[in-house]
């Protein structure tokens, strides 16, 4: 971005001597690093006014049982009872305004009401306009059909039919989305009762609504419907105030809710309306409500969570377990200051501390981690591993600890708020991801172009610079990038339901470990520890993961892996050049041979390796050859073979040209002295040819060194690969690629200096 902003700068620098250019580059980097750092100093308004004695206007819906409805001329429902109970607990008064759901939201945004209490789902879209209280109810959407209708058993049975929903609700949005997938239309109603009636009368085949509403209606016998599918996509209800306003009321609500859960009063309200189907008040919002906290101190990545309700000092009497995991899959597992951190790591450690067992973490890479468990070398694997039927054949899974899913993000200044806004635009995605698949599917419906990238950072940049309108990516990956301040985008939609992640052990083994994990996970969720850990990585106003965003701290943390990469780059280069020289001299001489078959052999070699891209050759040797021979080659071997053969082809031509440019009289003079062809080549022709070849050979060595970067696609952990890995967890592509570039530049510069010295020394 700085590049774009200062073209004049760069033009000037390009004309300056090397040192000045580098210095300026560093100054630019400081500027960038500093700017990012400043952008992170977030501030939060502090509000702690007393609400005692005040009267607040609470806007609500007309009829949305069991949350608000009229009975016997009296307004009641969970929302109504709860807000009244909270008001009593906190010592303020409420005036309830029944103006319908849309009207209630409008009233609060217009300042005519203080808060909405209307079974309102907390969504990221709404959080742009409202501040929400802690969740007081966990809901989900469910489909219901007429009691006597046996024709609809799944969403697919709705094809070509009409369904109903209440406009402006989550159910409506969900039905719309589903309709596109399964080919049915959605009719919207202002009132839930009408939407239900449309189904019972047979106009609509099904209705989509929040599960408590449906459950209540069916339970009371008021609606002749039945549910045939499980509930979808949990969302939580919260009380909402206008963004930035009424902070005192919001805090008081949280405090009151906590008290009511503590003294059992809220549970009584829930039981009252939902009977046996009532949820446990203490677990609502993963325990957030019961704790009365907006947010527990999430702590730092890698730390054990601090939470009074969650023991982390349980005696370690249940043994030690080896837990295999991936190397880098931010935010679930990645390295920070040499420590394995991430949601998975913090969670397994917290659970181990809570349940009283020891863990030995082994980051092996995803495939290797799975293999280690199947081979019995590790007891369990936690690595952002989706629970699939296929894997269930081999592994026993814990309860899901994370639901992943695709989410959309747009540039910070973008006006796009829904998929529809993408019509006619371009969307950036990473190839091979679920985001890619989702965008492809969606593009057919909405009509947008999909631009695929190899690298997440490139993809994000494409959106940030405005080339693409939006990106689709795994929700946690996206949220982590934004939370850590490295991805300058914003999230505008909810995550699509996706895969559940689970902890796994080998099928039939380590049942005790699995049970402890499940118990510990439940404890973590109930006490809010789970949310604490999640917040460390995904909460956008938390600076814990990015306390130091300066360029130098980035360099400090990344120089280790980058240096390791450089060593492998140099190793691969040195080996490749060595073998390429042998091949080049051999085939170069064959090309000059009097024997037409040998000449043909050499020409064929040169033409094949000069006539195909290095990348294709690399894939061929790494994936292709082992597929036929059954003998796997490691990336270094395959890479060195590729680069040796490739560079060897070019060196063949360099050698041929070099030898041919030596005066033939030299060979004649040598032969006339009685020296054999070999001695003549070695003593007379080659020394002169090498002098001619030197500049071309140096060129080829440099090209080969740079070509090692292509081996990153084979997973060979050279410099470019390491750069990509660092960027995968920091998203600092601008700075890292500059650092990587400088490292390449210095090495190549040194190689040039060395070559010139050798040239001067031996080619006098």
């Amino acid at each position, binding site marked *: 971005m700085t590049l774009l902003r200062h073209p004049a700068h760069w033009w000037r620098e390009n004309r300056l001597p090397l040192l000045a250019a580098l210095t300026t580059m560093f100054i630019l980097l400081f500027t960038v690093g500093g700017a990012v750092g400043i952008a992170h100093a977030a501030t939060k308004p502090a509000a702690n006014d007393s609400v005692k004695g005040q009267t607040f206007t609470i806007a609500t819906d007309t009829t949305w049982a069991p949350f608000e409805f009229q009975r016997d001329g009296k307004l009641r429902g969970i929302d109504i009872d709860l807000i009244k109970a909270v008001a009593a607990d906190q010592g303020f008064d409420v005036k309830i305004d029944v103006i319908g759901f849309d009207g209630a939201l409008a009233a609060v945004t217009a300042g005519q009401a203080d808060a909405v209490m209307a079974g309102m789902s907390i969504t990221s879209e709404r959080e742009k306009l409202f501040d929400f209280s802690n969740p007081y109810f966990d809901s989900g959407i469910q489909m219901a059909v007429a009691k006597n209708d046996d024709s609809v058993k799944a969403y697919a049975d709705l094809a070509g039919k009409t369904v109903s929903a209440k406009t402006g609700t989550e159910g409506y949005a969900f039905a719309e989305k589903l309709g596109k997938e399964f080919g049915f239309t959605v009719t919207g109603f202002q009132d839930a009762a009408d939407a239900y009636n449309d189904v019972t009368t047979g106009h609509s085949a099904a209705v989509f609504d929040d599960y408590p509403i449906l459950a209540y209606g069916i339970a009371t016998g008021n609606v002749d419907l039945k549910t045939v599918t499980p509930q979808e996509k949990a969302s939580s209800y919260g009380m909402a105030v206008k963004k930035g306003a009424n902070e005192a009321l919001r805090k008081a609500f949280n405090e009151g809710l906590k008290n009511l859960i503590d003294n059992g009063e809220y549970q009584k309200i829930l039981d009252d309306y939902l009977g046996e189907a009532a949820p446990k008040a203490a677990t609502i919002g993963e325990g957030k409500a019961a704790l009365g906290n907006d947010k527990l101190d999430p702590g730092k990545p890698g730390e054990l969570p601090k939470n009074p309700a969650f023991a982390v000092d349980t005696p370690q009497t249940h043994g030690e377990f080896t837990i295999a995991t991936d190397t880098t899959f931010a935010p679930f597992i990645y390295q920070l200051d040499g420590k394995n951190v991430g949601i998975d790591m913090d969670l397994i450690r917290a659970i181990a501390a809570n349940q009283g067992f020891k863990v030995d973490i082994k980051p092996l890479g995803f495939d290797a981690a799975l293999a280690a468990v199947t081979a019995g070398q590790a007891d369990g694997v936690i690595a952002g591993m989706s629970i699939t039927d296929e894997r269930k054949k081999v592994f026993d899974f814990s309860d899901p600890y994370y639901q992943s899913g695709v989410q959309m993000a747009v540039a910070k200044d973008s006006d796009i708020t829904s998929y529809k806004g993408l019509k006619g635009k371009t969307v950036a995605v990473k190839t091979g991801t679920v985001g890619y698949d989702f965008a492809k599917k969606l593009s057919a419906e909405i009509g947008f172009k999909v631009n695929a990238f190899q690298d997440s950072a490139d993809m994000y940049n494409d959106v940030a610079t405005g080339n693409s309108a939006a990106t689709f990516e795994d929700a946690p990956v996206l949220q982590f990038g934004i939370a850590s301040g490295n991805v300058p985008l914003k999230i505008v939609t909810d995550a699509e339901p996706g895969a559940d992640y689970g902890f796994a052990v080998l099928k039939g083994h380590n049942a005790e470990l699995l049970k402890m994990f499940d118990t510990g996970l439940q404890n973590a969720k109930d006490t809010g520890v789970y949310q604490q850990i999640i917040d460390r990585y995904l909460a956008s106003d938390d600076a814990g993961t990015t306390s130091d965003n300066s360029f130098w701290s980035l360099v400090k943390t990344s120089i280790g892996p980058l240096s390791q990469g450089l060593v492998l780059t140099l190793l691969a280069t040195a080996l490749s050049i060595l073998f390429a020289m042998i091949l080049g001299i051999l085939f170069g001489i064959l090309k000059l041979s009097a024997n037409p078959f040998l000449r043909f052999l050499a020409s064929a070699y040169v033409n094949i390796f000069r006539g195909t891209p290095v990348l294709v050759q690399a894939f061929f040797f790494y994936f292709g050859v082992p597929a036929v021979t059954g003998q796997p080659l490691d990336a270094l071997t395959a890479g060195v073979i590729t680069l040796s053969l490739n560079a060897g082809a070019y060196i063949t031509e360099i050698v041929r040209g070099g030898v041919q440019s030596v005066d033939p009289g030299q060979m004649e*003079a040598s032969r*006339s*002295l009685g020296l054999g062809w070999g001695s003549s080549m070695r003593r007379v022709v080659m020394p002169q040819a090498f002098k001619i070849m030197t500049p071309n050979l140096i060129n080829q060595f440099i090209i080969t060194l740079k070509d090692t970067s292509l081996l990153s696609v084979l997973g060979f952990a050279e410099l470019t690969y390491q750069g990509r890995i660092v960027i995968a967890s920091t998203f600092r592509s601008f700075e890292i690629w500059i650092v990587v570039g400088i490292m390449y530049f210095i090495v190549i510069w040194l190689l040039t200096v060395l070559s010139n010295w050798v040239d001067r020394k031996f080619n006098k």
Partner: protein
Amino acid sequence: MTNNEQTYTTPVTTASGNPIEVRDLHKSFGKNEVLTGIDLTVANGEVVTVIGPSGSGKSTLLRCLNRLEEVTSGEVLILGENIATAKGKNLDAVRQRVGMVFQHFNLFPHMTALENIALAPVELKMLSKADARKRALELLTRVGLEDKADARPASLSGGQKQRVAIARALAMSPGIMLFDEATSALDPEMVGEVLQVIRDLAASGMTMVLVTHEMGFAREVADRVVFMADGKVVESGAPADIFDNPQEARTQDFLSKVL
């Protein structure tokens, strides 16, 4: 041969006892036949100069004598070995006994004068490094360039280069010396010094074949003059006969132009 220098004798194994015997030599470049049946015999210690117009094939003939050119047909018996068909080591062995001096010197530019001379004896394990060095210095002294031992060819004049080249050709103690227009590339003032070296060599009893454009020198140094034209030996004989009393029209025509 009254000087005290080494005298070259040629061990000969052919029945005739001649170091060079060429029989019906044909040489073609593609379809172009440049030598059309050459017969030439050079006796032990004989100095033969080959003259003739450009393109007559005299250089090609000389180059066939150590097979720098492949022979199309015929026999080339050099020191008893038919090098037209000789292979590998045998060919190299003959070449070690045949010194060749080129028009363009063909010194090795990456070596000093001394290294140029010492290369073959060391590489072919004829002499130790120290002995080869000693011999190279002797040869340099003989061509009057003992002070240029450590000079690289680039710093030598044309005449000096050619004298080093002659010393190099002598390093392997050859029995035959071939000169391919050894003075053609030299500035006129340098021709003399090179000719003097060749003259001394001839006087020492070396068997030599010289292709040259220096008619005066050809006559002076030669025991026998061979006149070639159109790939054939037109006439050969004693210098006086050829230069003063040529029998063939081609010879008369050529000499009338160059003399």
